[in-house]
C-alpha cells in the first residue's frame, strides 16, 4: 500500500516565536485513510497542516507528500499543488465573488495558466464545479455572493472548492468548528465520504473527540507540538483524550509574579 504522507522527525518554529510549534513529529499515513488530528487550541494542528500544504518554510526533518519530497525552503511546483486540497479554518473565500466563481477558483491549478488568466473554464471544469456544488448541497447558491452567506453555507463553499480541485490528499483545518453539532456531523460525513469515494486520503484537524471518533479510522493526538498518541479509532481511550486536554501546567513562580 502506498503512502500519502510520510513525516520523519519534523520540527518547526514560527518566526518570532520562542517555543517551537512542532517538535520531532514523525508519522505515516497510507493512501485512502481518513485520519483525525485531535488536540486543544494552540497544539500545532494548523501549523502541521499548513506545512504539509507547502505554505510554511524553514522546518527541519523530512516530509514526503504523495510520494514526492517537500523542500523545507521553497514552495512546491504549481503543477503539484492541486493534488493536495486544503479546507481553511476561516474558509479563505473571496467574499465579493460569487459562489460558483469561488468553487471554480479550486480549478485554477488544473487549467493552463493562460486559460486560467482569461477566465474561460472548459465545459469539464464547469461540470466538476457544479458537481462539487451539488455534492455539498449548495447548487442553488451558485450565483450568490459569498458575503451574503451564513457561516454554514460558507463552510460548504470552502469544501466544494476543495473538492472541485480533485485532490488526492485532503487537508482540512477544523472544517466544522463554526457549526452546530448536527451540521458538523453532516459536513464531516460529506468531506470524508467524498474523499473516500475518490480514493483520496483525508487528514482533518478537530478539537472535538466525538466527531473525530465518528469520522476517522485513526486518531492522532497532538499536544504542545508533539504527538501524544496515534491509534486506530477503536483503541482510543478516554484517559488519553482527557490527558490531551489537560491544562498546560503553569511554570512555577510565573503565576505568582503576575499576581503581585
Amino acid at each position, binding site marked *: 500500500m502506498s503512502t500519502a504522507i510520510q513525516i520523519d522527525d519534523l520540527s518547526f518554529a514560527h518566526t518570532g516565536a520562542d517555543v517551537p510549534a512542532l517538535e520531532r513529529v514523525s508519522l505515516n499515513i497510507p493512501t485512502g485513510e481518513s485520519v483525525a488530528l485531535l488536540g486543544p487550541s494552540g497544539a500545532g494542528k494548523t501549523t502541521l497542516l499548513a506545512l504539509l500544504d507547502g505554505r510554511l518554510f524553514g522546518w527541519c526533518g523530512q516530509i514526503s507528500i504523495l510520494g514526492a519530497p517537500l523542500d523545507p525552503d521553497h514552495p512546491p511546483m504549481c503543477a503539484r499543488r492541486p493534488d493536495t*486540497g486544503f479546507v481553511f479554518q476561516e474558509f479563505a473565500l473571496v*467574499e465579493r465573488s460569487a459562489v460558483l466563481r469561488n468553487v471554480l477558483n479550486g480549478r485554477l491549478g488544473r487549467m493552463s495558466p493562460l486559460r486560467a488568466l482569461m477566465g474561460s473554464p472548459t465545459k469539464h471544469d464547469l461540470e466538476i464545479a457544479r458537481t462539487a456544488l451539488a455534492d455539498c448541497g449548495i447548487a442553488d447558491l451558485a450565483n450568490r455572493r459569498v458575503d451574503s452567506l451564513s457561516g454554514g453555507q460558507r463552510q460548504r463553499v470552502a469544501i466544494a472548492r476543495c473538492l472541485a480541485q480533485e485532490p488526492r490528499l485532503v487537508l482540512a483545518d477544523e472544517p466544522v468548528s463554526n457549526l452546530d453539532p448536527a451540521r458538523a456531523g453532516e459536513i464531516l460525513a460529506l468531506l470524508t465520504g467524498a474523499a473516500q469515494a475518490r480514493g483520496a486520503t483525508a487528514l482533518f484537524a478537530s478539537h472535538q473527540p466525538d466527531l473525530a471518533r465518528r469520522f476517522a479510522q485513526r486518531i492522532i493526538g497532538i499536544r504542545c507540538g508533539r504527538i501524544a498518541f496515534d491509534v486506530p479509532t477503536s483503541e482510543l481511550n478516554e484517559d488519553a483524550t482527557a490527558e490531551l486536554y489537560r491544562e498546560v501546567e503553569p511554570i512555577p513562580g510565573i503565576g505568582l509574579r503576575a499576581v503581585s
Partner: protein
Amino acid sequence: MMAFRGFGGFATSGLIAAAILWSFATADVELSRLMSAGPRIADFLGRMFPPDPTVMAEIKKGSAETLRIAILGSLGAVVLSVPFGILASETMVSSAVFRSIRTLLAFIRAIPLILVAMLMVGAVGLGPLPGIIAVAFHATGMLAKFYAEAIDGVSRAPIAALESAGAGPLVRLRYAIWPQMAPVVARDTIFRFELNLRESLILGIVGAGGIGFYIQTYVRSFQYDKAASVTIAVFVMVIAIEAINVALRRRFA
C-alpha cells in the same frame, strides 16, 4: 531635558524670525507700494466688472480642452499605474523591487504638475499634448501608490487558498486580489480624476492647453472683463466637480 527643550524652542523662534526678516529685506517690497496694493487690487477688480459675456465660445473651447486633458491624462495615469502599482506592492514583488519603485513614485509626487507641464511644453511644444503627458506623469506618482496600497490592503487568506490550489501570481492577482480591491481602485481613480481636472484648469498658463490659456491671454492684454468671465467659468467648473464628487461618494459609500 527641559533646558534643552527651552533652548530648542528659542532657536526655532529665532530661525522663524530670521526667515521673515530676510524675506522682507530682500523681496524688494517698498512700503509705499505695499500701501497702495489694496486700492490697486480694488481698481483691478473694478475693471473686471462687468464680466464680458462675449467670450462664451472661448470658454466652451477651453473647458472642452481642459476636460480632454484631464480624461486622457487620467487614462495615461491609470495605464502607467497598473504596472507601477503592482511593482510597488509588498504582496506581488520582492522588497528590493517595491522599495525602489516606491522611492521613484515619491520623487514623481514631489515634482509640481505646473513644472512638469512647463518642461513638457519645452519638449513637445504648445497645446494639449504636453498637458496630457504632464497630468499622466504627475498623477501616476499618487495613483500607483494608491493601487499598491489597495493590493496590499486585501485579506491574505484567499490568496493563500489560491496558491494552495496551484494558481500562479497573476492568476492570484486576478481572482483573489482584484475582486477585493476593485471598489478601492474605483474610488481612488475617481478621486485622482477629480484632482486632475482641477489641476489641469491652470495648465494653459504655461501653454500646456486648456481654459487657463485664456485667463493668461486676457490678463496680459489688459482685457480684465474677459479674464473675469473665464475665471467665473473656472469657479463654476470647480463647484460642479465638487458636486459630482459628493454625489459619487454617496453612491460608493
